[in-house]
C-alpha cells in the first residue's frame, strides 16, 4: 500500500494560476489528469509500501500523538484518540445527490457517502474483503447462492432497525436505480430473500466468485433506508436528506456550498479501545472545484482538509507548511486507448509501434508527475497480488527504432487497412480533454511519433462530457464509439473482475457484455481467462489467469499507460486517522485509495 504521511516545513510561495475553464463537476468530479471512468476494477494492495519516487525532500511518517504505548504494567492502559472537534473538507466537486442507487458518484462524492452510509463489506489493508455491516458471508460450491448474516443492533439515522428485510427492500429500489440497475445485472443478482431476522440469501443467475466485491461498494453494497426510495417524492428528498447507518448524519445541505454532517449518537461501532465512533463531532464538506483555491483554503484555515487527484496539487501541498499529507497511488493509472474498429488502429503493428515510440517518463514529466507518479505497465500496481512481472517485462519500453520498424511494416504492407498507398504516412488523431497538462502530454507523443517521419498526428480536445460520450458511443446496442486514440484512465481498487468482464467483453454482443469495452478490442482466448477468474476465489489462481490475459493484451496493445494516478488527502496538522482506520475486528482497513477518506475514524491528535 503506497501511503505516506508527510509533514512539510518549507516556506510558502505565491501560486499564480491562469484559469481557462472549470472541469465538469458532474458528480464525477474530475478524475485527475486523464478522463474517467475507469474501465476495469482491481483488487488489493499489500501492506508493504512500494519504493517512493525521488523527491526533493525526505518524507516523514508520523504516528498519531494520542495513541500511547505502555512500557510497564504499572502504566495506564493505552487509549485511543479522543472524541471531539470538527473537520471541514474541501472536495473537488459536489455530489449531485446522496443516493447510492441513483446518483453518479466518484472520489469527492464517496467522501460524503462513506460518512453517511456503511457498507456491508469493506476492504482490509491488503485489499481482501471483510465484513463491516455484515458479520459473515458464505457461498455454495458454485458461488450462485450467498448467505449473509447482518450485524445485530444496528439502527438507521431515523431510528429504524437494520434487518434482513431491509436488504430485501433495498433490492426493490436497486432494480430501478440509475446506478444500481446495471450493477444488479452485471453481478448476476436475481433475488434477495430474508431467510432469518438478520440472515439474507442472495441468489445469482450464474457463478460469481467475487460477489462479495459488489457488496463492498456503492451502489448495492451501501446500506440505505429503503423508505428513501419508496416513491418519487421520497427519492427526490433523499438526494439531500439521506438516511443511512453511518457515523454521521446530514444536518444541513446547501448544495454547491456545504453539507454539514453531525455525529450519529447511536452509531454501532466502537474502536478497539472501546471508544464509540465517530471521534469528530461534525464534518462539513465544501465543494471547491478550483485546485489552487482548494489548497489555499486549507493553507488559510478556511477548511481543515482537502482531497485531490492531481499531481500538481500534490506537489504544491508538499511545499506548503503545516500540513499532513496522506498520499496514495494504487491501481488507477492514466493512459489511453485505440479504437480498434478504426483504421489504422485496427492493426496491432500500428498500436504497438506507436506505444513503443512513446516515452512514458517524458509523458509523466509533461503531466507534472515527476517524482510523484510511478510508471505503469498494467492494470495492477506493484503491490497488488495480481501484479505480473512477466507483463511488466513485456510492456514496451521507449525504443524509437523498434517502434518505427513496426509502423514501417504496416506502411509497406500492400493490404494496409487504411486504404492508403504503400509508403504513405499513417494519419492518427489523438484526443484528450483540454487540460493544460494533458495537452502537454499529447504533444510529447506528437513530437515523438512525427519524429519517426512515418506518422502525421492531429491533436484534438473536447470537454469531458463530450470526450466520454465519444468513447461510449450511441446506445444502439453496439457502443462502438466515434473516437480514434483517446485519453483514458484504467484500474481501480475494486476487484478486477467486475470491470474487466464488461471492459474487455465482446462489444458487438447484444447482451451488453462489452458495454465498457471502449477500445472495442476483443480476444476470445484472453476474455476466456477473465471469465475463468470469476469462477474461483483463489487469489493465486486468479492472478495466473489475469497474467495470461495481460500477456495477450500487451501484444495486442489496445490500451496504454502513462503513469499511476497519485492522490492526496491533505489535512491541517493534527487531523489524522485517515490511514489507520480499523475494521470491526480491529484489523487495519484499506486506507484512502483515490482520496476517499473514512471520516468516521478521523480524529484530532492531542497536542
Amino acid at each position: 500500500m503506497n501511503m505516506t504521511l508527510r509533514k512539510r516545513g518549507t516556506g510558502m510561495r505565491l501560486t499564480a494560476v491562469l484559469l481557462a475553464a472549470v472541469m465538469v463537476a458532474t458528480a464525477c468530479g474530475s478524475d485527475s489528469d486523464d478522463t474517467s471512468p475507469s474501465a476495469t476494477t482491481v483488487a488489493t494492495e499489500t501492506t508493504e509500501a512500494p519504493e517512493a519516487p525521488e523527491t526533493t525532500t525526505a518524507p516523514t511518517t508520523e504516528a498519531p500523538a494520542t495513541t500511547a504505548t505502555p512500557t510497564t504494567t504499572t502504566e495506564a492502559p493505552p487509549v485511543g484518540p479522543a472524541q471531539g472537534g470538527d473537520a471541514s473538507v474541501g472536495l473537488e466537486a459536489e455530489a449531485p445527490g446522496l443516493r447510492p442507487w441513483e446518483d453518479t458518484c466518484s472520489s469527492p462524492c464517496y467522501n460524503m457517502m462513506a460518512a453517511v452510509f456503511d457498507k456491508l463489506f469493506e476492504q482490509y489493508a491488503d485489499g481482501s474483503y471483510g465484513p463491516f455491516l455484515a458479520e459473515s458471508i458464505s457461498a455454495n460450491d458454485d458461488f450462485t447462492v450467498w448467505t449473509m448474516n447482518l450485524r445485530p443492533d444496528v439502527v438507521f439515522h431515523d431510528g429504524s432497525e437494520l434487518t434482513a428485510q431491509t436488504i430485501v427492500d433495498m433490492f426493490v429500489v436497486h432494480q430501478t436505480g440509475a446506478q444500481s440497475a446495471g450493477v444488479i445485472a452485471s453481478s448476476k443478482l436475481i433475488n434477495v430473500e430474508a431467510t432469518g431476522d438478520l440472515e439474507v440469501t442472495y441468489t445469482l443467475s450464474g457463478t460469481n466468485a467475487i460477489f462479495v466485491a459488489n457488496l463492498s461498494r456503492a451502489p448495492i453494497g451501501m446500506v440505505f433506508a429503503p423508505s428513501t426510495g419508496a416513491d418519487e417524492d421520497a427519492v427526490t428528498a433523499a438526494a439531500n436528506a439521506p438516511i443511512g447507518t453511518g457515523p454521521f448524519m446530514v444536518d444541513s445541505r446547501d448544495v454547491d456550498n456545504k453539507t454539514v454532517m453531525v455525529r450519529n449518537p447511536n452509531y454501532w461501532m466502537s474502536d478497539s479501545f472501546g471508544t464509540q465512533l465517530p471521534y469528530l463531532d461534525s464534518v462539513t464538506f465544501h465543494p471547491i472545484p478550483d485546485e489552487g483555491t482548494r489548497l489555499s483554503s486549507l493553507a488559510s484555515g478556511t477548511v481543515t482538509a482537502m482531497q485531490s487527484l492531481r499531481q500538481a496539487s500534490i506537489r504544491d501541498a508538499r511545499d506548503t507548511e503545516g500540513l499532513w499529507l496522506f498520499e496514495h497511488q494504487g491501481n488507477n493509472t492514466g493512459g489511453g486507448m485505440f479504437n480498434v474498429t478504426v483504421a489504422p488502429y485496427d492493426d496491432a503493428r500500428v498500436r504497438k509501434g506507436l506505444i513503443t515510440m512513446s516515452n512514458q517518463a517524458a509523458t509523466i514529466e509533461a503531466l507534472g508527475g515527476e517524482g510523484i507518479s510511478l510508471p505503469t505497465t498494467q492494470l495492477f500496481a506493484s503491490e497488488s497480488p495480481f501484479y505480473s512481472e512477466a507483463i511488466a517485462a513485456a510492456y514496451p519500453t521507449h525504443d524509437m527504432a523498434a517502434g518505427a520498424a513496426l509502423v514501417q511494416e504496416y506502411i509497406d504492407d500492400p493490404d494496409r487497412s487504411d486504404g492508403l498507398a504503400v509508403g504513405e504516412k499513417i494519419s492518427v488523431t489523438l484526443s484528450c480533454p483540454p487540460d493544460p497538462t494533458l495537452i502537454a502530454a499529447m504533444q510529447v507523443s506528437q513530437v515523438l511519433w512525427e519524429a519517426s517521419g512515418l506518422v502525421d498526428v492531429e491533436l484534438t480536445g473536447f470537454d469531458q462530457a463530450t470526450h466520454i460520450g465519444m468513447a461510449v458511443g450511441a446506445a444502439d446496442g453496439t457502443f462502438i464509439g466515434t473516437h480514434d486514440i483517446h485519453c483514458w484512465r484504467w484500474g481501480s481498487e475494486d476487484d478486477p473482475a467486475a470491470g474487466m468482464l464488461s471492459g474487455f467483453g465482446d462489444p458487438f454482443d447484444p447482451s451488453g457484455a462489452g458495454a465498457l469495452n471502449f477500445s472495442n478490442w476483443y480476444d476470445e482466448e484472453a476474455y476466456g481467462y477473465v471469465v475463468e477468474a470469476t469462477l474461483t476465489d483463489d487469489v493465486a489462481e486468479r492472478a495466473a489467469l489475469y497474467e495470461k490475459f495481460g500477456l495477450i493484451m500487451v501484444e495486442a496493445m489496445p490500451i496504454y499507460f502513462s503513469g499511476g494516478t497519485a492522490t492526496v488527502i491533505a489535512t491541517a496538522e493534527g487531523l489524522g486517522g485517515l490511514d489507520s482506520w480499523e475494521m470491526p475486528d480491529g484489523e487495519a482497513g484499506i486506507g484512502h485509495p483515490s482520496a476517499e477518506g473514512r471520516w468516521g475514524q478521523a480524529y484530532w491528535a492531542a497536542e
Partner: protein
Amino acid sequence: MGKMLAVRLVRLVATILVVSFLTFLMVNLLPGDPINALVPPEAQNNQEFVEQLREEFGLNDPMMVRYANWLGDAVTGDLGKSVITSQPVAGEIWRRLPITAELALVAIGFSLFVAIPLGTLSAYKQGKRVDQSISAAAQVSLSIPNFVLGLLLIYVFAMRLQWLPATGWTRLTESVSGNIKSVILPALSLALAEVAVYTRVVRSDMISTLQEDYILSARAKGLKDRFILFRHALRPSSLTLITVVGLNVGALIGGTVVIETLFAIPGLGKRLLDAVFQRDFLMIQGITVFVAVVYVTINTLVDIIYMLVDPRIRKKV
C-alpha cells in the same frame, strides 16, 4: 408612461421567446447525450431501462414538441426538473439567485462608491496630474483579469493575513458577519474592473456637464465647487452611468461564473456552467431564460430611472 411600459412588456415576451428557442436549439445541438451523464455505460445496455429514462425526461420527443411542452410548463412557472439531480429547476434558481444578486450588487455598490468620487474629481481636475493618475490607474485595473485579482486577494487576505475566508459562502440568513466576510473578496475581484469603467464614464459626462452655462452661472453666484459638482453637475452626468450600470447588473447575474467557481460560491453562474458540462438541458434552458428576463427587466427599470432623474425625458414621454 403606461404606453412605454406596455411596449416594454411586449418586448420582454418577444425576447423570452427568442432567447428560449435559441437556447433550446443550441443545447440540443451540443454533442453528448444527457443519458451518458446520468447512467453509467454498463447500465445503458439495458434498453428498457434507458428507454424508460428517455420517456421520463422526454428525450424521445421531437425537438419542437419538447420545446412546446417546456414553454407550456414555463408559463405556469414550472421550468422542469434537472436531469442530473432531479431537483426542480425553478427551485435551484430561487435558491441561488440571492447569492449571485448579492455578489453583483455589492460589487456594483462598491464600484459606484469609489468610481463616482474618482470620476468627479478626475473631471474637476481635468488635464492635471490627479486626472492623469486616476486615468492611468483605471487603465491598469481594466487590464487585470478578475480571476487573477481574485487569486491575489486570496493570497493576501486569506492565506497571509487570515482575515477573510478563501472560499465558500455564508448566507445572510445564517450569519450577517459571516456573509459580509464571504462576500468581500469575490465582490472586490468583480468590482475593480467596474470601478475603472464607471470612473471613465462619470469623468466623460461630467466634463461635458461642467462646460454648460448653468454651471458657469452657479459659479458666478459664488456657490462652492463641491456643492456645484454633487448638487448640480452629478445628476445630469449620470445618465450614461445608469445605462452602463443597468447593463452590468444584467451581465453580472449571468457572468459571475469565473469568480463563483474560483471562490466556490454556489451561485447561478456556477450552476449554469455545471449544467453545460453535464448536458443538463432543462437547467441550461431555465437559467438562460431567467437571466434574459432579468436583463430585459433591469433595462426597463433603467428607462424608468432615466425619467425620474431627467425631467426632460419625463416630459417627452
